[in-house]
Each structure stands twice: as C-alpha cells, then as structure tokens.
C-alpha cells in the first residue's frame, strides 16, 4: 500500500493570495497535491515555532512554510523571521533523531505562480520518500 503523507503548509496571505481563487479549483487543476493542507496566515513572520511543532504532534508527516521572497517581503522581514523558526524546528527535529527535511521554508513571489505548485509537489515527493513520521 502506498503511503500518502499528511503535509501541512503554512503560507502567508500574499504568497497564497490566488490559491483560494475559484474556491481552490484553479490549484486543483494545476495538480496541487490534495494531501497538502494549507493554512493561510497574515504574515509568515507571525508563525510561532510551537504552531509548527503542534502540526507534527497533530500527525503531520511534513510541515512547510511559504512566504515572500526574503528580500521582498510585504512586511519587510516577516519571511526571514519565519525561516528562523523553521530552522529552529529543523534543528529540534534533528536533535530528536528525525529527518530535518520534514520541515522546510520556501520563499516565493506573491500570487499564483507555478512554483507554488512545484514546491508542494517537491515536499510531497520528499516526505513520501521519507515515509511516515516517527511521532
């Protein structure tokens, strides 16, 4: 039986602004993986480390964050802050002996670009390969 990972995406309002267009149908048509559950946040800089950890506690096999380009964040340094929190989660995972690839940060331009779908697929492939989370 093939494994379908539970993947949680936290994306800022700006980067994901078109992802909700047409009730998400557009994303579907572009092959955005169905098993990636997206939570939109006002700014990824608002994300707390605990929110990412709770996603793992809640059964996620992989967690990733998509925010504005590091040098072009709508809120100036929001996505850079998010990247630090993702980094903290990655190092905690590795302290626990878990693959840090299960948590990732991506910087993408605003709006619906093919990269938004690409990184979802990349994350999906990566976590599928890693297998179920040990938590």
């Amino acid at each position, binding site marked *: 039986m093939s494994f379908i990972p539970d993947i949680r995406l936290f994306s800022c309002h700006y980067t994901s602004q078109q992802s909700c267009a047409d009730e998400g149908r557009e994303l579907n048509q572009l092959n955005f993986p169905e098993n990636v559950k997206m939570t939109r946040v006002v700014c990824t800089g608002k994300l*707390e*480390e*605990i929110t990412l*950890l*709770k996603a*793992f*506690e809640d059964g996620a096999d992989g967690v990733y964050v998509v925010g504005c380009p590091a040098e072009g964040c709508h809120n100036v340094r929001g996505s850079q802050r998010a990247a630090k929190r993702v980094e903290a989660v990655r190092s*905690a995972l590795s*302290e*626990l*002996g*878990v693959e840090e690839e299960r948590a990732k940060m991506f910087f993408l331009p605003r709006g619906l670009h093919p990269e938004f779908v690409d990184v979802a697929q990349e994350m999906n492939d990566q976590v599928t390969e890693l297998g179920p989370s*040990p*938590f």
Partner: protein
Amino acid sequence: MIIAERKPLAEIIEMIQDCKKILVLACRGCVTVCSAGGEREAEILASLIRLGLKKAGKSAEVFDASLVRQCDKEYIDSIDQFKGQYDAIVSTACGVGVNFIANLRPEDNVFPALNTTFFGGSAEQGVWTEQCAGCGDCVLHLTGGLCPVARCAKNLMNGPCGGSVDGRCEIHSEVDCVWQNIYDRMGRLQRQEEMTVSAPIRDWSTAGHGGPRKQVREDLTV
C-alpha cells in the same frame, strides 16, 4: 541578569523517560528575557518532550505552566497548586529555581531543563555577554567599571597578561582583552596613575570558595 540556554533534548528526555505526568514549569524572570525558559520556551519544550517520548514509544502527559519567579519564596509557594499531580517537574528556570523547588519539595522529582551559564547582559538582540561573576568583593571602582574577574580569561587582578594581540585576548581573537580596555579607559579618564598600584592579594572566600553565600538585610526581614 542570569543567562541560560536549553540543554540538549536527549539529555532532558533521558531524565524524564519513565515519568507519566510531567510539568514543564517556566519562570517569567531572567530566563524569559534571555529567551531560554519563559512561557514560550516551556510550551515549545513540552511539545518537544511529547514528540521525543512518542518517538521512543513511550506515552506521557506533558503540561506547561509558569510562575512569576522561581527564585522567590513568595512566588514559588504557588507551586502548591500542582501538588501531587505530577511525577516530575522540569524547570526551565535557572539553577536557582530548580534548587528552590528541590528545597521546597523534599518528595518530588525536579529536573533542570537549562544550563545556567553566566551573569550577563543583552549586547544586541539575540546576543548576550558575560559581565560579572558575582565574586562578592567588587573591584570595579579600581578598573574603570570593567570586570577583570568575569571578563579576563585568567581572572587577573593586575593585567594585561602579555598574551593580548591588537587589543584582543589570546583565548579568542574576537574577544576584547578586558585589561587593554581597562588601560585605555583609565587613560581616557586620566586615572592611569591608579594603575601603577598593584592590586593586593584578593580574598576569594567571598567568591563562593567559602561555601554557599548568604545575605541578610535586617531592615527587610520581618
């Protein structure tokens, strides 16, 4: 303030591996300011302990709570609200907090979540540096306000040692030689004459070498 940092997770999880009900107890004092053991860090640690135990195939309930300060009887007393509910308290306070809980709770397990490192200050956001070692016999009036006990690698009372290069200490090229700083500063203050006087042999008994220290302020006791 007291500066501390979280212990490696493996060490913490090892301490409590057989506990079933664990309280991660934060302190809202110094360790909150240095982002090591405040409410936010305790919440994160509780989550990491749950994840770590789960990965190890163990199950335990892990909660988090906080006290205003763990180094103060007035506040630590409120730990009574958790009495009998947990088989381990993991304190994210400095070592003082852990000791205070241990003093107060002869029957209960308390474990340190942090390594208590030094008395320091926040030099810039996210950076803390050691400034004082709490030696109990302050010499800052003789050294232009810069501490040779805490900041000289050799705790010299008459420096520099001769090992400094370009104003940096020989232990690390990025650390200022505090004796160079003292020398420069005394010069600027036109107090260089004072540096010709050799510091007398120190009485280190106040620096913890005389056993645990105690301070009583009769005017404050009731």
